[in-house]
């Protein structure tokens, strides 16, 4: 194994470390994969790109023994292998950071990191494990996360880091990451990129799934592009451009990613006045006019998410004053917030976003069951019509409507969480936390357009996003946040990437 590492550290190796050949997988009638092949050399980072539902997650699940492929072979080190379960893959040094988080909230961070590691002897030295875990966290730039703290107290982004740390702590030859950066902010992503590059330098091979195309160009050597369960391209990243990659993914060129900004000013439509959330946000005040999209941005834990959750009525221990369209919104009362026209798209899809066991169409029309009197009869036919309309709007293919939500790809689930909040005329303010998390470029452009359309109808959007390109592209007003406080508020055009990054990392120096 060392020999292989050395060989590749110098350059390309001839025979690949891993090759998957002719992999096929169907779920009932759905062809998730057909005849997919890819190779991975030692010390190579290969991107797997494709639209939502293209089959990326299914492919890596088939590789790691989470799902059993119907067809095809997997070869490792020139020998054919079969992985019946993830632990078999792990025994061969193949580890997957999956798209859906699998953190145990009631265990400590340390236990979570070592959870499921095969190399742990029954009796082990805890001190040893501690230092190794701490070292891994340090590599990810997450030293601030306490090893003895409960994982349940961490934010979504921090949980994602723990998830990555878990796989880094194991002996890994092939590391697979399925959208690891969807919940991270730029700074953490940056650290993760360098950690992955240094792994590559040491000969580890990586399969990397992402919808953030910039990462493909920064990090990856090769790209496999998938569409509808097949491979449509397999080429070195050096031969790709961003536009070409998008074209391969979507099968068409993408017009503009972001719609025009809203420039006109007006009277205050929505305002937060001196909002405090103990331990999370201090003295936050802001105001939004009709037609505006306001974006709160910062690093993990900057407090943007909490501010949004307070407005949604989901935080009980906050104080401050919130008004929407001249009516005050009481704190900690989600049902009142809804009646006053507030809609909330949670950043935590599995926990707060979708109803996993229910079909997709029911997820889209779920608000109708809430708005109506309990004894009212449900017109299933009308509701299904409405669901189809909402699916069209949020670019979800109609044939997915009867599917159990848990069987949809991650991005398509996100479309449900988003889509259900754009349906009714009573909405005035949509709150969003990372609304395009895990959504492919094509659908993303469509969602930005929808957001803009919604605002044009005399409404407003308040969102939290840590994707800085998204922040600059969609927001009319940006508030940068650091440690629970707003650093500064900018109108569109008065902010650039450098300034944004400076604000959310070193606001003190910036303001001095």
């Amino acid at each position, binding site marked *: 194994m060392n020999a292989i590492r050395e060989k590749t550290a110098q350059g390309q190796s001839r025979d690949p470390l891993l090759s998957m050949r002719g992999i096929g997988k169907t779920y*009932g*009638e759905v062809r998730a994969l057909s005849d997919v092949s890819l190779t991975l050399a030692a010390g190579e980072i290969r991107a797997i790109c494709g639209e939502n539902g293209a089959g990326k997650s299914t492919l890596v699940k088939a590789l790691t023994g989470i799902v059993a492929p119907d067809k095809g072979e997997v070869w490792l080190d020139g020998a054919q292998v079969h992985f019946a379960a993830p632990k078999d893959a792990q025994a061969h040094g193949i580890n997957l950071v999956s798209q859906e988080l699998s953190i145990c909230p009631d265990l400590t961070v340390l236990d979570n990191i070592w959870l499921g590691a095969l190399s742990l002897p029954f009796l082990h030295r805890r001190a040893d494990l501690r230092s190794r875990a701490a070292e891994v966290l340090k590599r990810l730039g997450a030293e601030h996360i306490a090893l003895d703290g409960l994982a349940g107290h961490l934010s979504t982004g921090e949980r994602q880091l723990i998830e990555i740390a878990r796989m880094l702590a194991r002996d890994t030859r092939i590391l697979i990451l399925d959208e690891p950066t969807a919940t991270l902010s730029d700074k953490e992503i940056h650290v993760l990129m360098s950690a992955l590059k240094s792994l590559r330098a040491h000969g580890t091979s990586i399969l990397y799934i992402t919808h953030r195309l910039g990462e493909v160009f920064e990090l990856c050597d090769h790209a496999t592009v998938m569409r509808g369960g097949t491979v449509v391209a397999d080429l070195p990243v050096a031969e790709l451009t961003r536009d070409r990659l998008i074209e391969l993914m979507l099968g068409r060129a993408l017009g503009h990613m972001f719609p025009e900004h809203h420039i006109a000013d007006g009277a205050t439509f929505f305002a937060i006045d001196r909002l405090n959330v103990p331990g999370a946000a201090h003295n936050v005040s802001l105001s939004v006019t009709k037609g505006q999209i306001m974006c709160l941005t910062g690093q993990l834990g900057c407090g943007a998410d909490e501010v949004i959750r307070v407005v*949604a*009525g*989901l935080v009980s221990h906050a104080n401050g004053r919130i008004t929407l369209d001249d009516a005050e919104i009481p704190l900690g009362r*989600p*049902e009142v*917030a*809804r*009646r006053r026209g*507030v809609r*909330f798209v*949670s950043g935590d899809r599995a*926990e*707060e*976003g*979708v*109803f*996993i*066991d*229910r*079909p997709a*169409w*029911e997820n889209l029309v*779920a*608000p*109708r*069951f*809430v708005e*109506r*009197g*309990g*004894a*009212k*009869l*449900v017109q*299933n036919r009308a509701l*299904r019509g409405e*669901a*189809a309309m909402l699916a069209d709007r949020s670019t979800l293919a*109609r*044939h997915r*409507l*009867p599917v*159990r939500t848990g069987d949809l790809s991650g991005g398509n689930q996100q479309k449900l969480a988003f889509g*259900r909040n754009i349906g009714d005329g009573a909405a005035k303010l949509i709150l969003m936390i990372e609304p395009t998390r895990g959504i492919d470029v094509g659908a993303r452009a469509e969602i930005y357009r929808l957001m803009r359309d919604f605002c044009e109808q005399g409404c407003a959007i308040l969102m939290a996003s840590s994707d800085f390109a998204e922040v600059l592209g969609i927001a009319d007003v940006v508030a940068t946040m650091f440690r629970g406080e707003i650093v500064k508020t900018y109108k569109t055009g008065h902010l650039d990437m450098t300034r944004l990054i400076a604000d959310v990392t070193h606001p003190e120096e910036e303001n001095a």
Partner: protein
Amino acid sequence: MNSDTDLSGPLRPSFESMKARITLGNAVTLFAVLVLAALALATPGFLSMPAIRSLVTTVSFTGCVAIGMTFITLSGNLMSFSLGASLSAATLVFVATLGAGIWPAILAALLFCAALNALQGWIVGYFRANPIIVTMASFAIITGVATSLTGGRGLYILTNVAAGLKGNLGPVPGPFAAFAICALIAQLILSRTALGRRIVLTGTNPRAMLAMGAEPWKAVVWAYALAGLFTGVAAVLMAARYGSGDLQHGIGMEYSAIAAVLVGGTAIEGGRGSFLRTFLGALFIAVLQSVLVLRGFSTEWQRFGMGAVVLLVILLQRK
């Protein structure tokens, strides 16, 4: 796993997908049903009119409680340990109020039982208390209070007012007709009313409901209230049938009820299931019970057999 609570998707299920639904698990369940049916038919005395009448009458009592239990399970609160005790208490209420006439007595029993359980639902939903603990405590409280009030003695129906409830509807015993109607009504509530959908959605993901601005605790209260209501129906039927209100009536009822719910295939974790399933599950349990009795097993072995079969069927349903 297919869910029956949505009557059909936006697309008609094609023949292909129907085939896909006949999974191994379903086949095994079907097999278990066939084995039981064969066993029942081969049991001497099973196919006699009195045996069948008694079977469908007793199944109605547990069946109505199972319908109630299904609401609780669907709402994501596992099961209630106090439905049997609620039933006993409601039979007492029914008999005690019978002096005011049959309709007021029925109303009193139903309302009492619904309110008693709604209260538990409120504690479970609003304070996010553990449903197992709350309903176990309620079991003890209800039984304790009722015993001290009655001195442990039953109340007997001395007049003829409730006789109508024992009659037949054509060839069908009255209680069984009531049970079937209850199953239909419950299914209607579940799949055709906003409340029913709220209960199921709450059972799947209460936090998503909260984020949507719904109040999940209210759906939980309603689920318990409905559970109480249908248990109340069982109480009225039983009191009329046995001519008494008695604390013995409901003993062990929650066990048979939850067995019927689970054997029917409603998911214990909530959010998936239907009343048709519970109806069939109750029938399965009742037939099994009757076979065990007719084959002359002693009470201990009947219990053993029931437990073993329930465990087996539930294991077989897991994929």
